[in-house]
């Protein structure tokens, strides 16, 4: 479904991503792991069009998506959440999600009909699904950190994506919240037939949830394979798991 081949991106002299490759098949739950600064977020920004790669190929459903602006890539069916809660803090929770639903339905330029009558059901369904329905009228900026992260995912769901990219969905969460969020992600993937690409620091979570794992270091792809293969790989053990696995 998504194919990243030998992609390179440098900022000045710094090689953030170097010859990275990644393959995501339909229905997969792919995790990208690697130490801080390994280039995970940069890789996601390259896929979603926030950044342009210097070299390499990125195709989604057999079509080249390099050089497309972010909003076009999103319309092809890729939605994402951000590492730092990236929501609309002044708008209500409902409006936050409605913005992306309206965008997906191409209704964001309707001028003379009240917004509160449009895309209401779809938005409510998503809020019900992620468990934020009772907070729908709250101002998004007033939500707890954990709820803001969930809202991030809800906004991404509003686009009805086929592939959803989650940049550290559980960053800053307590262990209980982390477990809850990952259960939610897994359930959403099953219910909605979503393909998920995510990165995550908690190794227990990764090896528990992912169907395929890609390991990065210094911007390079070390290996991509099933959790068993990755766990058994000597280079990964030495580089990242510290031989503990």
């Amino acid at each position, binding site marked *: 479904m998504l194919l990243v081949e030998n992609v390179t991106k440098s900022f000045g002299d710094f090689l953030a991503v170097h010859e990275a490759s990644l393959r995501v098949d339909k229905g997969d739950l792919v995790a990208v792991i690697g130490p801080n600064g390994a280039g995970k977020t940069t890789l996601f920004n390259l896929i979603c069009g926030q950044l342009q790669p210097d070299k390499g190929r990125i195709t989604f459903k057999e079509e080249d998506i390099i050089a497309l602006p972010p*909003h076009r890539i*999103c*319309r092809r069916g890729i939605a*994402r959440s951000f590492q730092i809660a990236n929501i609309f803090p*002044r708008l209500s929770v409902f409006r936050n999600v409605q913005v992306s639903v309206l965008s*997906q339905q191409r209704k964001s*330029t309707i001028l*003379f009909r009240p917004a*509160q009558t449009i895309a209401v059901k779809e938005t409510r369904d998503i809020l019900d699904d992620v468990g934020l329905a009772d907070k729908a009228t709250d101002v998004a900026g007033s939500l707890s950190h954990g709820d803001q992260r969930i809202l991030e995912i809800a906004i991404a769901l509003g686009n009805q994506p086929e592939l959803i990219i989650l940049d550290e969905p559980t960053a800053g969460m307590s262990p209980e919240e982390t477990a809850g969020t990952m259960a939610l992600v897994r359930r959403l993937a099953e219910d909605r037939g979503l393909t998920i690409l995510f990165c995550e620091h908690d190794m227990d979570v990764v090896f528990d949830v992912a169907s395929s794992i890609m390991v990065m270091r210094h911007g390079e792809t070390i290996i991509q394979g099933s959790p068993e293969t990755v766990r058994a790989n000597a280079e990964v053990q030495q580089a990242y798991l510290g031989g503990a696995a």
Partner: protein
Amino acid sequence: MRQAIINKNSLLVSAGILIVLACLPLVLPKFYVYVLALIFVTALLAMSLNMVVGHGGMYQFHHGVFYGIGAYTLALMLTKTSLPAWLGFAAAPVCSALAGVLIGLFCVRLTKLYFGMLQISLGSLVWAIAFRWYALTGGDDGIHGVPIPDGIASLIPSYYFILFLLAASLAVMYLILKSPFGNTLRAVRDNPERCEAVGINVRFHQLVAIAIATFFAGLAGTLFVVVEGSVFPDLLFWVLSLEVFIMCLLGGWFTFAGPVLGAAIIVALRTFAGVYTEYWTLILGVILILLIFFLPEGVMGFLEEKFKARTQTTSER
């Protein structure tokens, strides 16, 4: 759960204000009617600016240009052509919107302050044309004695004409700001990066907002001609743009009707304090300093906050 698009109280209040304003010319001396008409014109201009500044988050620093373009377009059509007057009233806002989009096309490529800087430069170009092109615009003299159509030439009918257009424009703007577009625009203001990631063409939405705002600025320009019967390059000068910007901040740029209040305060101040001293801007300066310290959300924002604390509704902006 589902609220009406405008709640009953605000509808009643708006209707009440409208009735009072409609009755005022019956009791007020002419000078005050004139000042009110001027306030309405300026209020429409400030409201149009707030659409891009308060709701769109763009630093439209030189909004006066589009006000001036509207005014000049009408004045030129009335003085230099024999086309029917209504055509002038229709063409002026359209010309402003076209100019707005043209300048906006360059500006939306930049963000925040750079947007504003570029706009000041491009806008000043338009001012320079109006200031220098004597053959067409009368240069720094402007155009005086514009023949206003008979029906609205005298003060009282023009007052109602302006009041009607202001009310209609505010209703349309209100609808737009409550529409999916209005919501998306506020989302773009709060977080353009996120908007792109949910498939929103940010620049396109910004341009649409600029087109709408400059259209209404042009309309305000035509109303200025109706009140004053003349145009001059100061209408496009950056000082006026700054004043309008201040009206938005003063009234409350995250509120709907705040700029109307801001316009009323500043026009009244200029008119009444200006009688006593030409340094009335000093008073304005002091007000601004107080505003920044005590009412960062503007007068209307402050009032809404007070009101909402009691009624406990959501304070979504």
